[in-house]
């Protein structure tokens, strides 16, 4: 398909779905940053001994999301 004179692009289902997936991965990464912030805010409001463990879990999720987003977007 010619989108501009001389520029051709092959729009397939995989291309569209792939683009949507990459966008959603970035969106989840943004949400996970917000979740990290939220977990620390929650821990400040109600300070429980296991709050630190939960914060670590949320940070681990963020790191995992960042790595996977990088892999999927670059791949």
């Amino acid at each position, binding site marked *: 398909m010619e989108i501009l004179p001389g520029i051709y692009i092959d729009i397939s289902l995989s291309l569209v*779905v*792939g683009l949507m997936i990459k966008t959603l991965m970035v969106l*989840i990464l943004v949400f996970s940053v*917000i979740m990290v912030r939220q977990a620390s*805010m*929650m821990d400040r409001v109600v300070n429980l001994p296991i709050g630190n463990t939960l914060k670590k879990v949320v940070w681990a*999720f963020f790191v995992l999301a960042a790595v996977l987003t990088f892999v999927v977007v670059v*791949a």
Partner: protein
Amino acid sequence: MPELFDAHKRMHEELAGVKRLIDSGRFRSLWGSLVVEPKAQFESQNENEKVVILGRRHFITNISWIALVCFAFFVPFFWNEFPLVADVTDNVHFSLTVLWYLALAFFAVQKFLLWFYNVYIVTDERIVDVDFFGLLYKNVNVTEIRKIEDVNYSQRGVWASFFNYGNVVIETASEQRSDEVFGKTGEASPFTFEAISSPDEVVKVISELMEQEEKEEYEGRTK
């Protein structure tokens, strides 16, 4: 002043409801729905204020989203049954699976955090209701024990009766509401402990604290 504080402390130790809950040995875990005298602090806690009860929704109320997560976990095993998904390349297939599990994990962590930190705190001086809505909104209601007018609880349905949880509604003299969000939650009062474990015991403890406050106020007046 130290004498007054000692008297307050002595009276608190005599709370039969708290003693009974401690003796039962069931309400000590911080992961539980009802924790008696937890090692917890909250943002606006006063220096000598002691947390008597920390409650949150009964764990069984999470069953719907846990079941949903369990069901969704197996969906990628059947990707090829979905007509559009079956037509994409292996690379996109892999990306879709990664996205699915990441979104599922995000949903589960988010739900768990909201359950864990939406707490109801009863101290020897105040009642604190901490509500988090979604990712970016919190609502904290605080009232003093002496301002409580009425405490009651309700248990509705088979699950509530079977797992012994219910709503504790605390009526205060003040009708001021902290935020518009309160109206949207459909709670009967800003201080509604929703689906809290052993609501009868919670009501007993709050009633005892109210009696204690009244006694202190009376003694303060007669001295």
